[in-house]
């Protein structure tokens, strides 16, 4: 759930239709990367990769996070998992604040949140067999070893649709889709509550994408997993997500449940994204609102509304006033001066 910074937690969980307890909450999360120059490595600026975003993912729920490349989606994923340190904000896992935990204190929490990576070729160690890759998390956390580990790995292989006989094969012997299954199996090994999937299918063929997405949805039903699903392909996100948040230049500009977002988009950026989704029927004529230009640099984000440089409806005040994320109907938030007043 995406919230205006001012909203309190009670309001977040009390929303109708979304009464699932949150597994992960990110509150006012910021990640700024310093830009350093010269011999002395002076900081000459900041990249506002993630700039004050708030959301939560409920139990058994999938939150889709969409946006153009470079808008900070992957940084959100890595910050939530504490793979990179947040500049500011709070991350709560199952109600526990994990933002400032040290490495050793964080370890038990790592079991509850796992990640699936975009590139199925470099996210697996080429020198380890598939069985070792999947069994490694069990070993690291001292959950199982020897025969017990082997049996658990066998079970996970069955769950993700890999053959047990493939356990001794090395990653390079698998196809892209199978490799992504290994990646999913590795994430499942620790029986996590949350899986952060960073564009898990964008490197795969379309036919394989569907298989992997369906596998993820089946696993969610069986195990009650929560997903933070990052993608730039809206069709994929529509298929798997319950709710969707749209990011632009490090900020969330609109969020809603899937149906609302696709039928009644409010933010001009969401509108443009949706109109760019290909439709299978070529005779269907649609009004296309294609955006001009590129995403502005997150080092010097535009003043006022960051989207005003590309917005077809922009007015003078958009360059000056910064819009706030406001809930226009329950569960539907928009950050646009024109649509919220």
């Amino acid at each position, binding site marked *: 759930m995406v919230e205006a910074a001012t909203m309190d937690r009670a309001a977040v969980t009390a929303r109708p239709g979304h009464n699932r307890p949150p597994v992960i909450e990110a509150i006012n999360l910021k990640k700024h990367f310093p830009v350093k120059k010269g011999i002395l490595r002076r900081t000459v600026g900041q990249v506002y990769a993630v700039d004050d975003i708030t959301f939560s993912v409920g139990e058994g729920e999938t939150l889709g996070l969409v946006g153009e490349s470079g808008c900070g989606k992957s940084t959100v994923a890595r910050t939530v998992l504490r793979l990179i340190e947040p500049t500011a904000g709070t991350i709560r896992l199952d109600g526990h604040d994990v933002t400032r935990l040290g490495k050793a204190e964080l370890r038990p929490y790592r079991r509850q949140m796992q990640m699936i990576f975009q590139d199925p070729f470099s996210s697996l160690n080429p020198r380890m067999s598939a069985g070792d890759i999947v069994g490694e998390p069990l070993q*690291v956390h001292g959950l199982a070893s020897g025969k017990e580990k082997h049996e658990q790995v066998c079970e996970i292989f069955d769950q993700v649709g890999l053959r047990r006989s493939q356990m001794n094969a090395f990653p390079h012997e698998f196809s892209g889709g199978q490799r992504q299954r290994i990646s999913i199996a590795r994430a499942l090994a620790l029986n996590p509550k949350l899986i952060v999937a960073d564009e898990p299918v964008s490197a795969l063929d379309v036919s394989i994408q569907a298989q992997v997405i369906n596998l993820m949805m089946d696993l969610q039903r069986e195990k009650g997993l929560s997903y933070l699903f990052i993608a730039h392909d809206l069709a994929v996100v529509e298929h798997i997500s319950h709710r969707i948040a749209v990011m632009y230049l490090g900020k969330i500009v609109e969020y809603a449940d899937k149906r609302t977002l696709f039928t009644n988009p409010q933010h001009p950026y969401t509108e443009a994204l949706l109109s760019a989704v290909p439709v299978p029927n070529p005779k269907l004529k649609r009004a296309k609102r294609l955006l001009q230009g590129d995403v502005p640099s997150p080092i010097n984000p535009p003043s006022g509304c960051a989207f005003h440089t590309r917005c077809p409806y922009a007015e003078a005040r958009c360059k000056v006033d910064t819009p706030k994320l406001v809930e226009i109907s329950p569960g539907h938030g928009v950050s646009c001066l024109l649509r919220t007043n």
Partner: protein
Amino acid sequence: MSTIDFQTELTAAGANVKSRWGAVRFFVRRYPLGAGGAVIIAMMVFAALFAPYITMYDPLSTNAAASLARPSAAHWLGCDFMGRDLFARIVYGARLSLIVAVCSVTLGCTVGVSIGLLGGYLGGWFDLITQRFLEMMQSLPLLVMAIVMAAALGPSLPNTILAIAFVLVPTVARVIRANVLSLRERPFVEAAKAIGMSERRIAIRHVLPNTLAPLIVLATAQFGSTILIEAALSFLGLGVPEPHPSWGRMLSESAAEYVRTAPWLVIFPGLAISFVVFGINLLGDALRDMLDPRQRS
């Protein structure tokens, strides 16, 4: 777990490792040149181990009557000016070269890999200091460095090993560090972090094994160059002292004086050196191909 396991590597490459000879037969069929190199190295190791059974001559005993004897049935490769059998000296010289090469490469690679792995993975001040120091060392040519070291330590077998190991460290450390720097950013390292692995375990389990292929190529290349450096040091009188037979010194003793009158004194030790270095390089290339799973068809 990804340790350096040749058995697994071979199985993955499709070799029949059930029988002991299966792996060997596989290697010979897949890499005939490498097998040739292995044979040369095996010959050298055999000569080193069984020197007394290969030749009946003592490499140290002189015989004035046989001074500068031509190659003949009695002295297969002839004799030097002190009447010492050249074949015996080359066979015993293999022992010396092997000891120097194995010890200095092991020592140099161990230190170099440790520095490269620590510096590359951890970065920070340790990396900064070691890299500047290695750059200083590398500003001198390898051989000059070895000569300085050997001269400072004095000629003896352990000192020669130490001097050669010392000059190997910068190359190994820098290659490993560069490799580690790129491996560190790979998603599978990030995945290991997400699992909750400790940094040390990631470095040893995930990063180190992936530097294996370049390390083996490097170690074999270095193996060849240690033999050359040892020869050069001995040539200059800074290596293993008399009367131990060193291929390098055998060359140097005879090169100036006897190259015209008794060319066998120059040709055969020179051939021994080139032959062994050539064999090591062949073997090294084949090992690299075999140990890099991505190069398998």
